[in-house]
């Protein structure tokens, strides 16, 4: 480190002289030195930039994105925004289903969601927490069109204009010259892009009128989302499509809530007043009853509680699940005993990885010792034997162990032939922990041998000889002189093997049976089969954190400087 010494020298000279030391070009030496160093740093950064960017884009960013799913939960509030808002005031401990207002909000939310085919997605999400919600949403999406159909029929019987797409368009836009309410349209744009993930910013040839959206707020809102959806998803023209049932239901509700028509003189005023006269005598739409007709599970407080608990945009639910807990009535609680599995799997993964690491050390140490003490030519030959399995496919090696270890396999056959084991009581050596440990020790052995070998081959043999000549026994000279020098190799190999083992997946899956599988097998299951990516991300985050903590502990106890790969 010549630069460091130079800086120190500079400091020393600072104290003796009065002015700052100047470089040849007249600038202060300190500054020009800093500049030269900065240039060097930038050059170094420039050199590693391609790799750094590559790693960031293809490795760090996707992992961060995946891990973020462990807390992300926007889907509930994006799909059912109104319902979530209404549900805030509901008391889950009351033991009663929520009131009419929640069901009305649910109607509009579910109608839009089922038009956009997003309701089943939400059902799948909530089904991870409460069994049965998946089919509840799927079946209700189909039937939600029928809610309040008597009122729509009555409206259309009263005046055919309510079935006329052009009439609706003129009514809601309030005519060409009318004041417009583009704020409402923008709100709906935002809502729909939250719901579907698509871009809704395009011009749709419709903006709700200011007057009508004050008079009929719900209707204007429902019609706006209908208009946006019609133009952007279905690629149709708003004025040529009859509005959804939900728009008409919103109109019925607006009128029944006592919209004040007296001052309204815009388009369709006459039809609106007629509708008001007709609707006034009729009972209110019973949303709750309608939903209970669709499926009685809409009355189950458990389902509503799940929706309430999982309504915030971020949740700790996946992490709770990953440590065998769940969101109960009074905060987090342990899961029922017959569903607890993850803590046990984490422990098993750590324990078995340690065992595998230990058996790798035991097997690799003598081999590396031999390799580093043989003449070059025979050492190279042995090295190839070490590397050969390393170059063979992982699957092939694992399957080979299957053939070796199974009950009708090579080892059992040999033992039976030798008469050491009775034919009826062949050893069970696979589909259990033993199988996983044997197969993984074999597979990971080269990762232990290579760093050990490279460290041992740098230990000068003269040290041991010197110890012997000073009267040490073979054991003392090994234990006191040779072994301490080989520890960095053990450390490097152990870290490598342990970290690789902890994330192993294919081998435990094939030879592990039920008692020899790792946490990674459950992560893979949740990624590819159950599609519960949030839970998989939470399990993965915990595993990553565990590895980092162990690495930190290792650094504290052994010191990472003591690790040498060569």
């Amino acid at each position, binding site marked *: 480190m010549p630069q460091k010494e130079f800086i120190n020298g500079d400091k020393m000279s600072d104290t003796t002289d009065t002015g700052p030391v100047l470089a040849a070009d007249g600038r202060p030496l300190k500054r020009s030195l800093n500049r030269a160093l900065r240039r060097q740093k930038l050059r170094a950064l420039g050199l590693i930039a391609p790799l750094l960017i590559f790693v960031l884009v293809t490795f760090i960013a996707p992992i961060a994105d995946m891990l973020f799913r462990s807390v992300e939960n926007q889907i509930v509030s994006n799909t059912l925004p109104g319902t979530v808002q209404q549900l805030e005031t509901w008391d889950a401990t009351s033991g009663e289903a929520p009131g009419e207002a929640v069901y009305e909000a649910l109607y509009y939310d579910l109608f839009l969601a089922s038009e956009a*085919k*997003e309701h*089943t*997605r939400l*059902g*799948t999400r909530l*089904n*991870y927490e409460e*069994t*049965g*919600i*998946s*089919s509840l949403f*799927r079946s209700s999406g189909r039937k939600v069109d029928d809610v309040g159909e008597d009122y729509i029929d009555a409206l259309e019987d009263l005046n055919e204009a309510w079935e006329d797409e052009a009439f609706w368009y003129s009514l809601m836009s309030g005519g060409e010259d009318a004041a417009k309410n583009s704020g409402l349209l923008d709100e709906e744009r935002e809502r729909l892009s939250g719901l579907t993930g698509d871009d809704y910013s395009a011009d749709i040839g419709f903006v709700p009128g200011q007057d009508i959206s004050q008079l009929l707020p719900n209707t204007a809102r429902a019609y706006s989302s209908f208009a946006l959806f019609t133009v952007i998803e279905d690629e149709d023209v708003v004025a040529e499509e009859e509005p959804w049932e939900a728009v008409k239901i919103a109109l019925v509700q607006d009128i029944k809530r006592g919209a004040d028509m007296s001052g309204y003189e815009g388009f369709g005023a006459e039809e609106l007043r007629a509708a008001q006269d007709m609707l006034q005598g009729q009972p209110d739409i019973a949303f709750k009853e309608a939903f209970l007709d669709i499926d009685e599970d809409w009355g189950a407080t458990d389902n509503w509680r799940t929706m309430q608990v999982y309504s915030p945009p971020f949740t700790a639910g996946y992490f709770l699940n990953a440590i065998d807990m769940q969101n109960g009535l009074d905060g987090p609680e342990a899961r029922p005993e*017959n*569903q*607890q*599995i993850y803590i*046990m*799997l984490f422990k098993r993964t750590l324990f078995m990885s340690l065992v595998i690491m230990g058996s790798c050390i035991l097997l690799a140490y003598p081999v590396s010792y031999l390799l580093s003490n043989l003449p070059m030519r025979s050492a190279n030959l042995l090295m190839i034997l070490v590397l050969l399995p390393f170059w063979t496919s992982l699957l092939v090696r694992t399957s080979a162990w299957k053939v070796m270890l*199974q*009950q*009708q396999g090579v080892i059992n056959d040999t033992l039976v032939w030798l008469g050491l084991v009775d034919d009826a009581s062949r050893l069970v050596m696979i*589909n259990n922990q033993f199988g996983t440990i044997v197969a993984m020790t074999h597979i990971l052995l080269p990762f232990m041998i290579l760093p050990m070998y490279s460290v041992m081959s740098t230990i000068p043999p003269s040290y041991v000889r010197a110890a012997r000549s000073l009267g040490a026994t073979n054991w003392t000279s090994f234990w006191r002189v040779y072994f301490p020098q080989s520890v960095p190799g053990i450390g490097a190999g152990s870290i490598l093997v342990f970290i690789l083992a902890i994330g192993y997946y294919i081998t435990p*899956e094939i030879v592990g*049976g*039920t*008692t020899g*599988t790792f946490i990674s097998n*459950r992560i893979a299951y949740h*990624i*590819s*089969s*159950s*599609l*519960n990516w949030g839970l998989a991300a939470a399990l993965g985050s915990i595993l990553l954190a565990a590895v980092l903590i162990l690495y930190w502990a290792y650094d504290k106890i052994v010191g990472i400087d003591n690790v040498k790969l060569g």
Partner: protein
Amino acid sequence: MKLTKTLMATTALTVTAVAAHAQDMADSMTLVSWGGAYQKSQVNAYAIPYQEMHEGLEVVWDESSNEAVAKLRAMDEAGNVTWDVVDVVASDAMRLCDEGLAMEIDPDEHLAPAPDGTSAEDDFGDLLVSDCFIPQIVYSTTFGYRTDMVPEGVDAPDDICDVWDTETYPGKRSLEKRPINNMEWALLCDGVAKDEVYDVLATEEGQQQALDKLDEIKDDVIWWSAGADTPQLLADGEVFMGSTYNGRLFSVIEEQDQPVAMMWDAQVFDLDGWIIPEGLPDDRLARALDFIYFATDTQRLADQAKYISYGPARASSAPLVGQHAELGIEMAPHMPTDPENAKNTFLYNYEFWADYRDDIDAKFQAWLAQ
């Protein structure tokens, strides 16, 4: 003279129409399937004849059906769906439909009617279990056993409960490492009536009852996760009996001549078929739809049964099922739907498992790990 002119004009029109039609379709197509003998049967029955009709068409096969749902979801999020037609089991098709990842199909518009004019919707009938699913075959999960390991003086197993009878039939069993099918079989053998199985399984107590029943043979079970495991375990003599897909057992028995026989009792029917991913560009969508129309017509579905012992999903294909293309044996008796084999069957309950899958799986895995 006038007639010739008209004829010529019509021909010219037809030619341009066909040319325009062909231009609209992509000239390569990626099909996703399961690999192995099953994919081979699809290549022979569908892809090769289709390519003969459309010269210059390139067909790429991807053996990813096993994780099709997860991969399609990832592709959708990345905004780059590279698959055109995907072979999945019905329950996965339902999930893809629920997630909005598969396109909804109108059977009468997108699928060919039967030769006698029956509409596609009626021809497939109840097998159209999801709006996005185009059924192709009926397969079953059933048991095979080693004939040479049946103890002397004992009848061959012919009852699902023989799986639990380790005294009469010693030896290991192989079962799939998931609750589906195993829970149903356990309840059936624990005295639950067939039509009540799912009602019982919907309750806490029923789930526990099934696990308790499975507990009886837990020490004798090797759990499999890949369809090829049980055939291998049977061929090695590692297990006495094991569950797997009937087509796999067919190939162990007939093609590899192993001393294995089928036990059809309480076989569970399931469906496999095609889906088209949502949001394909127009030219690729046109190609996918054109292929689907061809590959799921009555004759093509019957042709597939020449290569593998899975039942065609169309009612109109059943009478056309002939002999195995290479072995020359009659295929009908090897079909899961054959009346002799289908005396006692079970139909996979899609709705039930869509709801209960996560819950029961958590319990099942916890039980397994104990």
